[in-house]
């Protein structure tokens, strides 16, 4: 039943989750991203995926992630098809598989999948033909591995010694696939100190077991941080059983420039986007000198190119 995302030789076959990956696999992605990024900057991006077909299979609305994947595929000369199923009623299994098999019959090499259900990417990986790769672009609350890779890649650029870092992740951990993948990724990189800051209503059960320390007080959590990672608060969570309202959330968990002073002077500020200014982050911080948020976006394309190249270079066209 279970799908292996790394084969015996250490080659990445699928990318479904950060969990279980080894550091050399990540380092390999970062090295490839470095190479491809500089090749692109010098106008000589190699057509590594020429003749390969990649399908962006999105069962959930997304512009940023889908664009990032599309651009990454195009820069490597792949043929890419965008299939947007977010608006259709295709969310149940049978039709999901029908969709998959129909597209597979057109001979594709890789599915990039985003789906509102946790485990959807694993499910699809179990049912694709051998040799077809599945890349998880976000499944429910479970995982968003390329986001974690681009986040780590960005951190590495500014602060390469992970062992000496204090990273603070702030916000809705409960519903966040970004947070789950980042926590796994940081632990793979042997991060020195990982802190999660959130109200108890936005923390999943026994989250400490993933390898992190939990804080409910942002001021305490921020002390001497090297990296401050703010999570997006979904609109539907702002009012209801999780939180009273967005103002109270901002008061306790919003990153203001005054609060940021509690972190180290050279701390970097990150966010997976899209941001809610004035809810989780103050504009002056989002656009300030410590923010690397736009850099994350740029790195996203390079890292996604690297992941696609690493997976598909292990197979023949």
């Amino acid at each position: 039943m279970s799908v292996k995302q790394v084969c015996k030789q250490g080659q990445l076959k699928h990318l479904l989750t950060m969990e279980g990956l080894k550091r050399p696999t990540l380092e390999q992605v970062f090295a490839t991203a470095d190479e491809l990024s500089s090749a692109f900057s010098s106008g000589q991006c190699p057509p590594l995926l020429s003749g390969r077909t990649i399908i962006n299979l999105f069962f959930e609305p997304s512009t940023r992630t889908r664009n990032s994947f599309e651009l990454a595929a195009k820069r490597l000369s792949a043929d890419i098809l965008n299939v947007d199923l977010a608006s259709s009623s295709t969310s149940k299994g049978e039709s999901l598989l029908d969709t998959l098999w129909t597209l597979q019959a057109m001979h594709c090499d890789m599915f990039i999948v985003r789906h509102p259900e946790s485990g959807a990417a694993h499910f699809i990986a179990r049912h694709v033909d051998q040799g077809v790769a599945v890349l998880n672009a976000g499944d429910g609350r479970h995982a968003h591995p390329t986001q974690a890779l681009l986040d780590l890649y960005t951190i590495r650029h500014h602060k390469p010694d992970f062992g000496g870092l204090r990273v603070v992740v702030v916000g809705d951990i409960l519903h966040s696939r970004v947070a789950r993948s980042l926590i796994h990724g940081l632990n793979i990189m042997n991060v020195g100190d990982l802190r999660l800051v959130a109200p108890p209503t936005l923390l999943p059960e026994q989250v400490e077991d993933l390898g992190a320390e939990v804080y409910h007080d942002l001021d305490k959590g921020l002390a001497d941080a090297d990296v401050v990672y703010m999570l997006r608060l979904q609109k539907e969570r702002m009012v209801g059983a999780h939180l009273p309202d967005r103002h109270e959330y901002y008061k306790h968990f919003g990153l203001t420039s005054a609060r940021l002073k509690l972190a180290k002077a050279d701390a970097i500020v990150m966010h997976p986007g899209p941001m809610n200014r004035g809810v989780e982050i103050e504009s002056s911080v989002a656009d300030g000198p410590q923010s690397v948020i736009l850099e994350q976006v740029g790195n996203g394309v390079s890292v996604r190119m690297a992941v696609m190249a690493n997976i598909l270079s292990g197979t023949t066209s």
Partner: protein
Amino acid sequence: MSRQTFKQVRVIDPQSSTDQSCDLHVHNQNIVGVNDASFAVDQEHSGEGLWLIPAAVDFGYRGDLRSLSAIGAELGAAARGGSAHLVMEPAGTSVIDDAAEVRDLKARAKHHDGARLHVIGAVSSNLQHRSLAAMSTLREAGCIAVGDGGQSIDDTNLLIRMLQYAQSLDLTVFLTPLDSRLANGCVHAGRVSTRLGLNGIPSSAETMGLARIIESVRATSARVHVMRLSTAEGVELVRNARREGLPITADVAIHHLYLTENDIGPFDARFHVQPPLRTLSDRDALLAGVVDGTIDVICSQHTPLGRDARLAPFAVTDPGIAGAQTLMPLVLQLVLDGRLPLDRAIDATSTQPATICKLNHATSLKPDDKATFCLIDPNDDGQIDSEHWHSLGHNSPFSDWVFRARVVSTWFKGRQIA
């Protein structure tokens, strides 16, 4: 006239404190004696190396009434799993709130070999839990109890009225220990739900529901059977309630005595069950509850599903295990591993469920008792190969296990049903 002898078989009957190797004689429907050299026999069965134990009564069958042409396969699966009786619960679209439906079901089941079918009726009409079902009519149609169909009755006022009404009819009420507001999930709320990003059902969903049931029993003195305990805390609540003398019985599904949340791995939907698989310490507490008798009954909660029910991401799949055929192999594995005494295993699969449902079922193996039993090979170490898998549901994580104990045959009133 059929006269049969089971030669040199180890007859184990906790009720009559029998455990002896002997020749057991059956005449027509009844056991007539042992080691009688003068018994004239038509047919001999070798029992060498085999156990002969009372057949099981399996609770928790959740069948789809729309596809009941398949019921023969499920009754066959139950008999292959060592059960002479399979008790169907209302669940999902199979609401069982109508007397004609019950009669039809029972009539259809009669045409099939395999285990005998018994039916629990719905406690509320259309299982909506808004008004009482016609319990008296359901009882007349043959329902052996009434139940909530796996959906907790959130309206406490209605719950109490149901218990009072059922009590006046001398019906046991089968209830689900659940606070539905806390049950919006598909796995145990804990390490695994957090890791996989799946909605969790906390242990408190069970204990809050259970506490409400216990208070309602205390208020009414009605007889309640609590279905499918899954948590250590739940076992403790039942233990205390029984110590107090409240008329509460309870069961556990056999898979909860083996599996935990860790078995789900990366989204393996074979392990999607309701209530969810919980932690190692819950599993151990459930087994301890069976051993000390707090949990009266072990059942399979047999839920055969079509292939499509599992072709989806984990949370969207239908929960359940087609477990009838692996009931006694799994229960006896606990015995052979020294974790459950054999007499308790027989009590929990035969005597107690028969008593709770007031079945006219032979749970002992004395002369003049009905010849309803199964023959077990305790040294089999084999698998159930797919051609001998009877259930139409293939949703089982146990289907490829190697079992030490195998059900060789099952007998109902002197007739072989598997």
